[in-house]
């Protein structure tokens, strides 16, 4: 009823504005997901599939979704495993979702561990990608233990502009060292929170994969 009423209002008030200049990006979502592929974390990728499927199920026509791996040098388009901007037509969108899932499934089956973990580089790549796609809501999901290990020579100690971004860390598992010293785990999360918020972004942690609703809030 409310929708019908608003439609009527929109019809009356926006009739004058209706000259083919309807907005296309003002209501779209953009999600960029980073998958940690370092060390034994690859075993966790089955959980990442769950998250990807959840995101795909909640994506609408016009939304943008990309999945990229975190490896030694993540600031690269080559690390993008699958990317899509869904078509305006719901029927085509469904086909695109099917294809996307297949790509991810193939990747998970054949993934190889990387030696280093360049989370910052991946985050930078996500920011660049989403800024280019320019959706209304920009979300970066980091599926990682958030322990960054950079290859010598890689420079990542600079602020990242994250204004308008929501950065969600998921499945931040506790490492052996974290169990021994929990302050290490808490300190790691705090460091990332500060880094994201310093860049103007919002920081969220989701460890319970049954509660993924905050991704689209």
């Amino acid at each position: 009823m409310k929708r019908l009423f608003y439609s009527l209002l929109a019809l009356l008030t926006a009739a004058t504005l209706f000259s083919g200049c309807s907005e296309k990006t003002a209501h779209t979502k953009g999600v960029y997901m980073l998958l940690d592929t370092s060390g034994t974390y690859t075993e966790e990728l089955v959980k990442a599939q769950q998250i990807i499927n959840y995101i795909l199920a909640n994506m609408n026509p016009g939304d943008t979704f990309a999945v990229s791996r975190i490896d030694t040098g993540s600031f690269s388009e080559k690390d993008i495993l699958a990317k899509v901007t869904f078509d305006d037509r719901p029927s085509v969108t469904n086909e695109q979702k099917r294809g996307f899932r297949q790509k991810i499934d193939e990747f998970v089956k054949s993934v190889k561990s990387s030696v280093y973990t360049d989370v910052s580089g991946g985050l930078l790549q996500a920011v660049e990608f989403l800024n280019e796609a320019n959706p209304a809501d920009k979300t970066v999901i980091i599926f990682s233990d958030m322990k960054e290990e950079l290859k010598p020579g890689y420079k990542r100690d600079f602020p990242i502009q994250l204004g308008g971004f929501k950065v969600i860390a998921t499945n931040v598992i506790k490492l052996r060292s974290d169990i021994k010293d929990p302050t290490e785990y808490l300190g790691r999360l705090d460091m990332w929170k500060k880094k994201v918020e310093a860049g103007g972004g919002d920081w969220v942690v989701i460890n319970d994969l049954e509660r993924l609703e905050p991704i689209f809030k």
Partner: protein
Amino acid sequence: MKDSIFMLFPGSPALTLLVWAIIIVAIMYFARKPVHVALRAFSRTIHASLRVAARAVTLSAKRLKARNEDVLLESGKKAIEVAIEREFERVEKVIERDIGTYPELHRKLSDYNSKIEADYQASMETPPPPPEWVKAVDTLAKIKTGNDPMVGKMIGDIKGTIEKAQNKATDEYRRATRERLSALKSLMPLWRQSNKLLEQVDGKITGLFQHAKKIDENLAEYKEIEQRSDKAVRTLSSSSLTQFFIAGIVLAIAIGGIIINFNLIAYPMQEMVGGNSYIGPIKTADVAALVVILLELAMGLFLMESLRITHLLPIISSMDDRMRTRMLWITFSLLVILAGIESSLAYMRDILAAESASMRQYLMGSEEQMQTSVSTIPLIGQMVMGFVFPFVLAFTAIPMESFVHSLRNLLGMITVGLLHFIAALLRFTGSLFDGLGKLVIGVYDLVIFAPLWAETKFKKPTK
């Protein structure tokens, strides 16, 4: 405050206050007359202005009431004129159909009557009497023969002749009676048919009487309206309110239908105009779905206007018949096309919903995409609904017309009531200002009661 210039006696505020009170009372006493005049003038001006305003508002209310009555009576008159016209049309049809065939009916009845009369005449024919000579012979037969064999033989012959004649006469009588009875028997169906025909005539005449009675009633009502009687106004007002509520209920039902229709076509419309296009905060698909529904309503209105069922757009009903018929077919065709579009959208909706459900299942767990239900009943139901809705919505024009007309009367009545209320409020406020003026004057005199008392005490009486 201590060092204020108003402190006439520093250190003695009571004395200062007393002196100031005396000064103020003295000033008020000397200024009494002009202040009274000013206060009276002020309160009277406001009182008079508000009364004038109230009168103007009352006058407007009266004018509006008269205008409302005019509109009400005029619409009532039109409605009765239409009703009388329809009754006359019905009477004309009855006369054309039934009374027009009266000569034939009359001829049939005359034929039946002639036949009945002929048969009746035939039934009246009496059998021939026995021949006259039989009496004479009978007398002869009674003569005593004695012992004469000749006479005996002759008498015997005569007896035989008489018996023969008797038998013949009896036979003749029986035959004649049989013929009369059969003539009477053949009257039965003719009587029945005549009775049936007369019953038919009675039914038709009764129908005509009923129509005539209705015309009489309508004419009496029309006369009441012509005389602008209170009864007519009351009846029409009440009828208008009833119309308003009934039309309102029907429109509410239609709005329910529009909502369902909207939900039926809004989602599949995304396939046509895209699911990511917005006009302001609203999806273009939603707006497009609404446009389709509004177009259906408009086509329905044009159709009803072309059929002269409604009269919201006089330009259509006043078109010449050829043009109106063209318009009728055009709007009907467009309505059919829109119904087809809706039906196909309903089909698409079902497919998309099934695909989405299947995709959700696929993404949420199962390796293989699950097969969706193959029942076609919901699909057919949606398609039929999509096809039927535009035609159902077309009929919304009828209650809409009643609603618009009765709304005008209702709004008129409400406005009249509101104007009367405003007039009463203005009169009340005017009276309040008048009373307040008097009160303030009284309070003023109360403050300066001492000099006033002295004035009346020491003033020399003027001759």
